[in-house]
């Protein structure tokens, strides 16, 4: 079982990502967080194989979340994928510099998103 945490404040985007991930196979289990705070609360509750995060969110943003995960010993090995629009080019760079493994630009094709997840999980 692979637990994947999707952190994204847009509900329809979140549920779309959930569907795309679940299409990958039954062993993928998606947990959703609608805000950065929710993500902070859910992190200790489960063992995650992957965190996918948006950048622009209301309470704490994706950069702050990446920094938190990558500086916390028990989470730092969980790979992270940044999902953001081309507007957040600069933030994407910052996220990668803080240790995120990959990024994908919105909008994306479902196959590309799935490919990215497989790639990050297999490396």
């Amino acid at each position, binding site marked *: 079982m692979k637990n994947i945490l999707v952190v994204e404040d847009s509900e*329809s985007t979140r549920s779309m990502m959930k569907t795309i991930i679940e299409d990958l196979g039954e062993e993928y289990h998606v947990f959703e967080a609608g805000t950065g705070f929710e993500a902070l*609360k859910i992190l200790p509750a489960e063992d995650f194989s992957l965190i996918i995060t948006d950048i*622009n969110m209301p309470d704490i943003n994706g*950069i702050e979340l990446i920094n*938190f995960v990558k*500086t*916390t010993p028990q989470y730092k090995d969980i790979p992270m994928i940044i999902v953001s629009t081309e507007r*957040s080019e600069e933030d994407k760079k910052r996220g990668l510099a803080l240790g995120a493994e990959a990024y994908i630009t919105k909008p994306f094709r479902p196959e590309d998103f799935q490919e990215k997840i497989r790639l990050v999980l297999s490396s």
Partner: protein
Amino acid sequence: MNSSKKEFISEAEELLEEAREHLLELQEPAETGVTPDTVNALFRSIHTLKGISGLFGLEGLKDLSHAIEEILDSLRLGNIEVTDDVISFLFKNIDILRELLKNAGQGNDLDVTPYLEDIEVFGRKTSNRQKQESLSGIIDEAIISVLSNYEEQRLRANIKNNRAIFIINAVLSLADFDKSLSELTEKIKKEGELISTLPTAEDIPPDSIGFKLLFASGKNPDSLKAALGVAPGQIAGRRPEKASAQKPQSSLKSISTTVRVDIEKLDGILNTIGELTLTRGAIKRIERELAGIYGHSELVFDIHRASRNLERRLSELQQQVLEIRMVPIGQIFSRLAQIVKRYSREIGKPVNLTVFGEETELDKFIAEEIVDPLMHIVRNAIDHGIESPEERKRKGKPEKGTIMLKAFQRGNNVIVETEDDGRGIDTEMIRKKALEKGIITAGTEIDDTELIGFIFRAGFSTKETVTEVSGRGVGMDVVKDRISSIHGFVDVRTEKNIYTRFSLTIPITLAIIKSLLVRVGINTFALPLSSISETLIIGRDALQSIEGKKVYNLRGDLLPVMQVSDFFEPGSHTHESDYHESRYIVVSGYGERRVGLLVDELIGGQEIVIRSLGRYFEGLKGFAGVTEIGRHNVILVIDVETLTEEILLRHKGLVHV
């Protein structure tokens, strides 16, 4: 239109509505002036709209929101000033987006090229891009690297405006950090601008989480310390007073002074208090006996003083523990709001939720007990109360339905109301169903209030009938049972096509209740005071008989009356004379649901701890539990609600006695 598309449309509508509200705020700023928060929130709404439009393949919507986003980005970065021109330009474009969205809902993706050109021209005209100064050397590189681009811009703007930059470190409990954190950030926002909220786990104990709050303010560190309750460390900006040389304060000391306690531990304390109350009763008895033996001697006065003191302190302690258990009902309302939002979207009936009285407090346990019943009522309201947008339009109602949640305190109770502006409960359908079920006969005279009461009967309604047509019924008996189990009751008011309102009257706290002890024959019973409205002494022959049912003339109203033991032992009072023995009436209920219970003696008030009857007697109707009243004397606590119900039914002749 498939469901995810529907979901998209409704989220997009919400985003545009949000954007419009933010724009209104910009147009008429509060006293504090235009806040960066509002501009940023506006940016985020359009940014999210662009994101989801792209995902759902709506190119026109995506391109236009992208162009507007560019303008908003310049606005939040300070490259464009907020002027009336800019605001009306944005209003115009949000209207265009709304139009596009409407078309998208009908499957059309319009060409947006002309609009895009307009925006580009506008952008060139207003933009006034400034050269960015480097922040390195002013602010620690390690801090800049964890800021988002926007946050860095805000940092820059604040330094340029001659404000100092501060950091506060907070260590909070992981389980509920959001509440204490937002309290702190609200305070910070009053003193300046919050730039970044950085979570950290470094050097933080387990079950806790740390936050670095980076903010800008024009105030000096001392007044900030006074306003925030914690001394911030200054890391950059003007006023290089003594504070500037200091390293950011990095105390591990928590800024929050709250502890979290398992509710079971509080239950434990309450139980101990309950036991102590019994001991106090024993001491009082000993005091009386001593007085009988020794008269009013010094020793008796001593024990009297001590026991009075014990009594006072005990009730203080009890009050304090009960206060600890209190939570604002807003916690539950916000959970319900989420359900309403999600559920109404799921089934395609847009609903406005309005909430009043979130600050009303009630016991944590009771709060948890009413969540499910409320959820049930609210879901029912969306399912069957609120009409579809088309039907509402036909009826001349706003297409969006409204559900109101309201809470307020009345005496020792909290009233929680849900009201929808849907089609109301169809009493004719209920009448038909009641006839079918044989609950009433064709000749039974019965008013609407009583008919509506039937929805709370177990197994009264089935999906094929009442629910689908009139909209109510499924599981309402469960709602009522849950509310009765915490000594509350449910009332429904409805008007066809106007509203349906459920009022739950529930005790604020449960653990220890005030009760009235009464004697009936050789038995003593306890009646919870919360369900009693008054007691009366009656003279002989004060009761009248109508069709064999006892009634009492209470200030001009006929009050249905029954001997308490009649309920438990039907037929035990077969002789008229028995009714003449009883000297007191305990009145319970209110309005049309008022009834009288006949008892032989009012013994007095007492605080009791209700214990459950245990598994063996679980199904026993009419008893709320047992309680101990000193000297190992165990008595039954009467469930007044059930009794009231029974009396009303018997007096209507609806149930065969």
